[in-house]
């Protein structure tokens, strides 16, 4: 049968009940979230299920929402079922004070560097990762540059007046 968003949603809710939530389809891609403790269970289910077969990890990265207390960091997985050509987006949210998330490296070899990159820029601590260290930035760096508290330009600059342009 065809793998529709409704069907995937039905299978996920059958398996995880209320735990999976926030189903929506921005620009045609099924998106949902789950508690961060369940990330491996959900990924494993999507991987192993003979019908779902989301076995290709297209992308993994994080987003920082500083105003969302307790859910500051989102880790976003883009999964792809190459056989039926269906994609989905799976998000987990974590507290920035305690950004521990289970690693997906056991499931996808490709997650290794993607998680290192996510750690490097957002400080998400992937528990169980074989080699969690910085990848693109220098190892001596002691902050996570893609977090929103680090503005791109130095705020003390006075030679630029952007008042007129709402920046």
């Amino acid at each position, binding site marked *: 049968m065809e793998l529709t968003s409704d069907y995937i949603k039905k299978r996920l809710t059958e398996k995880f009940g209320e735990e999976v939530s926030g189903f929506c389809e*921005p*620009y045609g*891609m099924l*998106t949902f979230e789950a508690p961060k403790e369940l990330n491996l269970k959900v990924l494993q289910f999507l991987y192993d299920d003979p019908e779902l077969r989301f*076995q*290709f*990890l*297209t*992308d993994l*990265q994080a*987003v*920082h929402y500083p105003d969302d207390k307790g859910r500051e960091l989102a880790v*976003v997985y*883009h999964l792809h079922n*190459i056989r039926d*050509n269906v*994609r989905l*987006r799976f998000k987990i949210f974590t507290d920035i004070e305690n950004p521990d998330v289970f690693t997906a490296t056991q499931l*996808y*070899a*490709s997650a*290794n*560097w*993607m998680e290192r*990159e996510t750690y490097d*820029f957002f400080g998400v601590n992937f528990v169980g990762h074989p080699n969690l260290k*910085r*990848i*693109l*930035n*220098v190892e001596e760096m002691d902050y996570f*540059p*893609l977090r929103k508290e*680090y503005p*791109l*330009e130095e705020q003390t600059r006075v030679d630029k007046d952007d008042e007129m*342009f*709402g*920046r």
Partner: protein
Amino acid sequence: MTEDVLQYSSGQNIKLPDGSIEKQTTTLNLGPTHPATHGVFQNILEVDGERVVSAESTVGYIHRAFEKIAERRPLYQITPLTDRLNYCSAPINNLGWHMTCEKLLHIEMPKRVDYLRVIIMELARITDHLICNSVIGVDAGALSVFLYVMQYRELVYEIYEEICGSRLTTNIGRIGGFERNFNATAWQKLDKFLKEFPAALKEFEALLQRNRIFVDRTVGAGPISGERALNYGFTGPNLRASGVDYDVRVHTPYSSYQDFEFNIPVGTTGDVYDRWLVRNQEMWESLKIIKQAYQKIQEFKGQEAEVYHADVPEFYLPPKQQVYTTIEALIWHFKIIMGEANIPAGEVYHSVEGANGELGFYLISDGGRSPYRLHFRRPCFIYYQAYPELVKDAMLADAVIVLSSLNLIAGEMDA
């Protein structure tokens, strides 16, 4: 004597006395500025004689924080950043980015623009594959093929020059189309390329494809199974060389690729030779696509034959003539250049078939003037992590051709 040979074949070249502080293996730095890496990245190889025991890759030497910069720039100003990802096929990055924006902004593209884009993207794919395949030749000891095909890349760069004014980092096209129509010279140059290139490609192929030395060097070097390749996130020609027929152009057609007929070449073993063959065949397929697109563009008549952009005044710059003479056009121009047109909130993932794999753009907008978060899915960053597995137990010389056969672009890897 027999014992010595046995010892050699079991990979123990150096016998150390007990308690020695020396290592049994030699540490060898391949990169960061080694001619064979073709880019700035480092591999620390542990070699036992000529056999590679392990490899550790270090990347990030030219990291430029594009994702951070993009969070402060309007969509327009992000295009030049995408140039600097895979700079061997910059137009694919540019157009992929424009298509992502168009998807976010719900812009319908006219067919003619789609076809013009297909021509550009396939030309870019040819140049990229041409470099990668000829560089495999260089690393296997055949410099002449590389020098020979460079002049055909030059023909393509001249076409870019006519269309957008630049050659390597092209900044080609705009959100909503192209900034100007292809001029007569561009079409002439495309004609010239289509006329001269097939013969050169045939010769290029003849020099390597069944060349005994080249085949001996590349067959069986750095193989990877389809399953393993998928697990490692391989995409593009490297995945197809392992026998998986995944191609974004066919699976999720963009820019009207569904209107074209072409084959997806696949390999079987995923070794250097198969990767070379797949790329080589893809160049022929790209030529086929370009010819079809050319044909289709010729078929547009009247008004339609002049269309080179969609009608989106909020994001597409008005013609300069109007900017200088009418106040409305001047206001639009100012708003676009200063990035004062807000983009709708939403999150969108769009991917295109880059020359070395699936190039994805994940754009989250909160409705402001610039993206809230932009992430590039860079194909070679993801599949490069398979390198230690590919070269384990290979000879040192094979490690070099495996590296070049993966089509790694440092600019893309480090973003």
